[in-house]
């Protein structure tokens, strides 16, 4: 067979300044998971992550290698960065649900540093301050002219997920925005 290693659409790109770094995230397994409340317990058990049922919340597995992000009242984005197969885990669940592999649909950019919030605020109209968007908060929203999912993984760390073909725009936008982060906090 051919070389079947995954090629990141942002491979080789990197931005670092005194306030913020932008890094393409490692490839991950991703799932768009859809279910009604009565299936949440079974799916949580199978995935090893308690699916959050409150808006803007995320939950992480004990090992930290898998997370579930609330995107809508019946929708979660499951991200596995530990080499697991969440699709296979959900396949065992009999309760009504829809699990669709979107590992390659999305790609992610890590935005980190004391200027991370300012960098995202160049293009995201949501209030990303710690009081309103605390660590663990996540939301589908807008960055410049595209749709993204923003997930705060630390006080000064965010993971920005977007569709593959928009990732160049997302990175370019953040690169421009990052120039301003060391200048105005």
């Amino acid at each position, binding site marked *: *067979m051919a070389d079947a290693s995954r*090629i990141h659409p942002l491979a080789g790109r990197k931005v670092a300044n005194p306030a913020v770094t932008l890094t393409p995230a490692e490839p991950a397994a991703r799932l768009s998971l859809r279910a009604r409340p009565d299936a949440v317990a079974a799916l949580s058990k199978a995935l090893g992550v308690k699916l959050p049922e409150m808006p803007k919340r995320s939950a992480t597995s004990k090992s930290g290698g898998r997370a579930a992000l609330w995107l809508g009242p019946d929708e979660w984005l499951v991200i596995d960065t530990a080499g697991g197969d969440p699709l296979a885990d959900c396949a065992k669940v009999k309760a009504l649900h*829809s699990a*669709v592999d979107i590992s390659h*649909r999305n790609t992610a950019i890590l935005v980190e540093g004391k200027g991370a919030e300012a960098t995202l605020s160049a*293009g995201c109209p949501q209030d990303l301050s710690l009081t309103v968007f605390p660590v663990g908060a996540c939301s589908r929203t807008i960055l410049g*002219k595209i749709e993204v999912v923003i997930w705060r993984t630390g006080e000064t760390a965010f993971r920005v997920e977007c569709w593959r073909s*928009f990732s*160049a725009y997302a990175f*370019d936008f953040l690169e421009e925005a990052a120039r301003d982060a060391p200048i105005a906090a």
Partner: protein
Amino acid sequence: MTAAFRTTAAGRLKGAKPVKISFDGASYAALEGDTLASALLANGVHLMGRSFKYHRPRGVLSAGAEEPNALVGIHRDAARKTPNVRATVQEVYDGLTAVSQNRWPSLAFDVGAVNDIASPMFSAGFYYKTFMWPKAAWKSVYEPTIRASAGLGVAPDKPDPDHYASRYAHCDVLVLGGGAAGLSAALAAAETGARVIIADEQPAVGGALRFETGSTIDSAAGWDWAQATAVKLAAMDNVRVLTRTTAFGYYAQNMVGLVERVSDHLADPGHDLPRERLWQVRAKRVIIATGAIERHMVFDGNDKPGVMLASAGRTYLNHFGVLVGKNVGVFTASDSAYAAAIDLKQAGASIAAIVDLRDNPAGPLIDQARALGIEILSGRTLVRASGNLRVASMTVRATSGGPERTIPVDALLMSAGWTPSVHLFSQSRGKVAFDSATRRFLPGDYAQDCVSVGACSGTDTLADTVKDAVAAGEKAAKAAGLAKTVGTKVKAETSESWAGGMVGAAPGAGPDTTGKAFVDFQNDVTAKDIRLAVREGMRSIEHVKRFTTNGMATDQGKTSNIHGLAIAAEALGKEMPEVGLTTFRAPYTPVTFGSLVNHSKGRLFDPTRRTPFHAQEEKLGAVFEDVGQWKRAWYYPRAGEDMHAAVNRECATVRKAAGIFDASTLGKIEVVGPDAAKFMELMYTNPWEKLESGRCRYGIMLREDGFIYDDGVVGRLAADRFHVTTTTGGAARVMNHMEDYLQTEFPHLDVWLTSISEQWAVIAVQGPKSRDIIAPLVEGIDMSDGAMPHMSVREGKICGVPTRLFRMSFTGERGFEINVPADYAAAVWDAVWAQGQKHGACAYGTEAMHVLRAEKGYIIVGQDTDGTVTPQDAGLDWAVGKKKTDFVGIRGLKRPDLVAKGRKQLVGLRTKDPKVVLEEGAQIVADPKQPIPMKMLGHVTSSYWSENCGRSIALGVVTGGFERMGQTLYVPMPDKVIEVEVVGQVFFDEKGERLHG
């Protein structure tokens, strides 16, 4: 070297770094901290521009953002030429280069000034009347002449090399204005812990404290208190202090647009500093503390260079240390001009006289002026200011008339009182209310969660202003959810007085007079013009404004609106509010396009989407075309080939051997759940329940009105799982359309939709050799015709990675579409490409794809359909399930107009001359000799040269087309008429045998 009019007696620039600036080629000494205006005045330069219409010489009127006259061009380099910069706002830096505008050949001698002599021609409404006839002259004579001789400065002709930053910000309390009121309010709000943003347009906070000398706050001089308070605020974690920042627009739900000028004041901004930063602030509460703007007096010659607002003269002295004249006259109707006279006198200027309209002005300031020996001419008016390029004298008489007295002056300060700045309040949709006692408009009914404090809400004393502001700050914080108040205290006292004032023309510039008493300096509107507008029948201020252009210049009438309204009201014999007040609109001051666009230019103007095969296609020499945001491989020219040759070769190769095509941009939706088939039945015209797993079907989606909305091949992966494809352009809207029905009309269905457009990259391999090319790479799928017939889908592996392999065709050849996870796409493409080479395959682009599908009569939604085409019209009736009892569009299809005879129907068009290729969009008629306008039967929707058919081919929609088979119709073109025969849609392999070949 010290500039001649710089004084050591006053000002805050002592010890500032000297810098050099140039204006119209002459070099001047300036100090860091100067504005261009203060620097030029320090050098005795008052003439800074020419007016818009009459080209009259103009100096500065003000010392701030309201400036209508002193507009200049700032030239940094070839690409950085900013026109219409207010000299009163532009800060100097070493090497600043400014040029005057709206004059030719020079500022002092301007040919256009003949307009001033000929001014009876240029009265109000002149544009409307003069340029009416003859019509043709507008384009050839009037417009070019007007454009050459008028206009404000010259727009730069090179791309803007600067970058502009953008920031969304959120706060509890946003304070607009950093004077005594704004700072007090911000402090009170901040001390509760609220998130506070305070913005001020000046380089430093202070507002009116910049020129006032008589105010003391918390036992410090007003200005010093302001600076200390700003430092204190900036040190708080919950506060952002933005200077050089203008709140230009107040939008819905307390969204306020701010522009921060980051580097226009720097000699060398460096690479990383943005020129400006746009702040889009969402505030829970807004405190408007925008102060007041002084009004000029309306009298003949009030626009001469050297005639300016009293507060401006005071600012130049008390802040910049510049005497605007050495023998200064004053014309006023309010107390505050006295303070200016006193300050200038104490700094060494002589005051020629204070002319006061009021009969008996009284108060401490008047007493102090008198004590200093200043002559006060009360009950008098100023009928004329004279002088050529600079004011030289003022002519005074009693307000009631009588003999005139002319007094020499070299500068003239004026004050008609203060106009509260209700612009942002009005922009917030608040309604202003007229206070008849003080004849001014004040904030009335509020429409948003904001409050006005200080001079902008009519509070005249400093003590009340800071008291109200502190209360407003605490209240706003509380309303925003902050529970505790710390009891902020600010104590202020002042000897300043803003009492008095008048609106309208001064006595001496009444209806019977002939002089030019300017109301709006920038648009050259005089009191006379406004009276003329009333005589011409204008009744509302909205009409007067448009007739005279009063208040319609870039300064938006900051100094002129109220005077204009008062003069119109007087002429109409009405009260001011009965005539109206124009609504204030954003932007408050001009805003650069750069800041509004900010990041969205160049590569960020619009997202550019590339497929996972893009690099592979580039390597093969693809030429790309834009399809929406996508870059799609259009054709792959080889050495010596033009587009035509490349497309011909690609089309022929596909039918002879095989072609490899990037179909990744098609939309894909995974429909999952036990009710998936039920949902599909509702969304598409076709039947789905009985489609077996592993099989595909071409589906048509309608809108409820019965017209084709989208189409695509759908594969059933399992009983409860469909892989739906959409058109490239339809991907997002089809998803929205399906979600809409699922969520709001059919929520009882157990099914979910997930976009998988970008999960799967798609390589189409089409042609007789397609199976031979793919088969060796595939594992776990039997690709024999028996096991995998046309229109089937299988899941397995290709090159060791998962695939959804479709057997389908958009070319009419045996064909496959290989779906692979996108991150693996490049590797799979390379393997397929290598295989293809063994079988004589080529890569083909979207152009060949279009030709190949047209040869087969396959439609493209959006090209062969236009939103008014039904499946019947397109010859796709077979795809509508006749036994179905419901699907979106089922009722629409039965509408009388949709079943009536004579609809436009999609047919093939065969030119009589096989070499002639029709133009897409060309109209089709039955009789080319009929008179124009001809009756049109339809138009050409698709047209190509077909190498495989050895002739041109075309599709078109034609009225009653299906009944016209064999008829000759005509396509009239500018140079000829093309004869066409109406034929069936399929031009190649009519029986469809090649699908299985």
